[in-house]
């Protein structure tokens, strides 16, 4: 009898483990079925999707362009992946309601990579098996760099909303919406120099992360040009990312007026807290990785007051495009969209613009679409949330003016 109980408990545990793992994998598919009504119905129509779904489908010929998305919807960088997934679904839905791309509807499927290169490649393979024709992803730099090797081999058009490492789009089939890391580092140095924010700057960066060390290198070069002195540059790694007392102490001892943080917000929230505890109060300046710091539950936003960050998108900006996007996003998912959401939203519209320019159709192979899109990308000009008149060069880099925001009263204020 006792043994039975033990067995039963063990089974329950295993079962909960399976649901724990299984959930992340099945979620995108489930979401797809529930949110992308028309698109999903097209695919599921021939199978047993349900009568109402089949009846809703407007395009009788069932032409769909399959766009895949990859990003972390679980794990430490999940905030970015969730935002991208939500915003891309929102954009796909809008585009479909307006008639799709050249008459073909978008079918969008998003796979989780947990911000892990190996899982991203697995996700890519899953999407390829599903019949993906265009890839909107991946969200974070390291996985993107791994996936671009695959997409280049397959000659599949790839547009990353936020993969900002140089190598993330090193081949001619890949483009991006956001700035590359070097551009962020150089632009930050330029911004600090031009606005005379500080002359003595300390840097705390994550040497185990391509994103962080990439920005740091270009920042160092840019700082020299601007006449900014880097008084201390201290690193940490993914395995020692809780205690920053040493790095802060060195910045303090060196008399830094500004601390540049080219890192993600989780570590930054700890740095702000520890700086406050030790009574060190310089200016803090970060890049897009700091976006999300205000969303940290229970975080004392007073600590983040006056923190500046380079970002292409501020949800409080008053232009009509931003406002309508923000309200649509809030209505659909709750919560204010961050810049990753904006990047992804733009990415879908960029795919639409390039797709229409290139005249792609649903029956074209991924490789044919890629060839046509590559040329079209350098010819289009897109007005998006993250910049007016965005253009691209053949190496995949966007051209648009950088923006910065400052945290005032617990909210981003466009500067």
């Amino acid at each position, binding site marked *: 009898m006792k043994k039975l109980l*033990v067995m039963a408990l063990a089974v329950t545990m295993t079962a909960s*483990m399976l649901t724990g793992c299984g959930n992340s994998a099945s979620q995108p598919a489930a979401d797809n079925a529930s949110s992308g009504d028309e698109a999903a119905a097209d695919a599921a129509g021939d199978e047993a999707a349900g009568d109402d779904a089949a009846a809703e489908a407007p395009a009788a010929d069932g032409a769909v362009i399959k766009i895949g998305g990859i990003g972390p919807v679980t794990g430490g960088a999940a905030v970015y992946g969730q935002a991208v997934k939500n915003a891309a679904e929102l954009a796909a839905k809008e585009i479909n309601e307006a008639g799709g791309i050249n008459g073909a509807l978008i079918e969008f499927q998003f796979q989780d990579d947990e911000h892990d290169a190996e899982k991203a490649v697995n996700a890519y393979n899953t999407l390829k098996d599903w019949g993906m024709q265009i890839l909107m992803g991946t969200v974070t730099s390291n996985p993107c760099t791994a996936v671009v090797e695959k997409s280049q081999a397959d000659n599949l058009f790839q547009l990353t909303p936020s993969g900002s490492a140089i190598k993330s789009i090193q081949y001619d089939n890949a483009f991006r919406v956001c700035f590359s890391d070097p551009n962020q580092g150089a632009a930050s140095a330029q911004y600090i120099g031009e606005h005379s924010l500080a002359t003595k700057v300390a840097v705390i960066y994550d040497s185990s992360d391509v994103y962080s060390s990439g920005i740091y290198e270009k920042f160092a070069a840019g700082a020299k040009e601007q006449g900014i002195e880097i008084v201390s540059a201290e690193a940490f790694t993914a395995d020692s990312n809780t205690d920053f007392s040493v790095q802060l102490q060195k910045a303090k001892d060196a008399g830094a007026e500004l601390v540049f943080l080219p890192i993600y917000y989780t570590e930054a929230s700890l740095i702000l807290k520890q700086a406050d505890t030790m009574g060190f109060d310089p200016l803090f300046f970060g890049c897009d990785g700091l976006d999300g710091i205000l969303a940290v539950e229970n*975080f004392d936003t007073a600590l983040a007051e006056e923190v500046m960050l380079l970002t292409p998108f501020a949800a409080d900006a008053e232009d009509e495009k931003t406002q309508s996007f923000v309200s649509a996003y809030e209505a659909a998912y709750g919560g204010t969209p961050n810049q990753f959401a904006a990047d992804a939203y733009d990415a879908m519209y960029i795919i639409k613009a390039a797709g229409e320019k290139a005249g792609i159709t649903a029956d074209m192979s991924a490789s044919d679409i890629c060839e046509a899109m590559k040329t079209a990308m350098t010819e289009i000009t897109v007005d998006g949330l993250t910049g007016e008149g965005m253009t691209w060069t053949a190496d995949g880099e966007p051209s648009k003016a950088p923006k910065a925001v400052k945290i005032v009263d617990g909210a981003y204020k466009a500067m």
Partner: protein
Amino acid sequence: MVDVMSFVSYLLNGISLGSVYAIIALGYTMVYGIAKMLNFAHGDVIMVGGYIVFVFVSTLGLPPLLGIFVAMILCTVLGVTIERVAYRPLRMASSPLAVLITAIGVSYLLQNLALLIFGANTKSFTSVVAIPPLKLADGQLTISGETMVTILVGIIVMVCLTLFVNKTKAGQAMLAVSEDKGAAQLMGINVNGTIALTFAIGSALAAVAGVLLCSAYPSLTPYTGAMPGIKAFVAAVFGGIGSIPGAMIGGILLGVIEIFGKAYISSQMADAIVFGVLIVVLLVKPTGILGRNIQEKV
């Protein structure tokens, strides 16, 4: 002068970090000493403790002490359940690896459950310590309230555990089980009960450690316990696994070495230095600083 001040400041920071490792290491060392197994899920029980206090104190607004008490009870239940369901059936397994692998499995299970329940978003933990930081030398040196409380709690726990093990009947039973399970059973000691008690104490300690860890480094994610758990395991080995004062000394030394390594050698190499020192110590003294030399009698 600045150099001296920095040195003292680094030392204090090292002790602060080390005291967190120490209190986690106490749980590791205790379970290892008695059950002779590495409970890799210990770090994740700490994370669960952190979340429970977060929910009760930050979200529901209970007084911190009550929150900690609830967390200790719930973590105890969790620890005993894990032991009963996942470890006990495997204790007699032919390979001791089986239970080790299970422990890793439980660790991932807890992380994934936390991910499922609380999501991946970082939560900022409100410190339960209300003591203002101590400012010395015109504010050039700061000792945070968390550091003082952590060290104090660490010492109290260490003394209580030592007394418990040496002076009570249950403690003596633990010692007997750790010496020789089979013989202890023959002497009428309930081995399973004793090991369950060990897990109960270890898990309650994990809850306390979780609160102190999150108070000192207030960012709470499902992976919060993983790295400190591994570092604390190293600290336990460093101090001599199975030895209660050893865990305390090992933890504090590890923290101090880590901070000094960062400050004076290289901030990127901190972990390499820590583990390098560990290798050297183990080469010189394979049982750790306070570990007992066990002589095999033929």
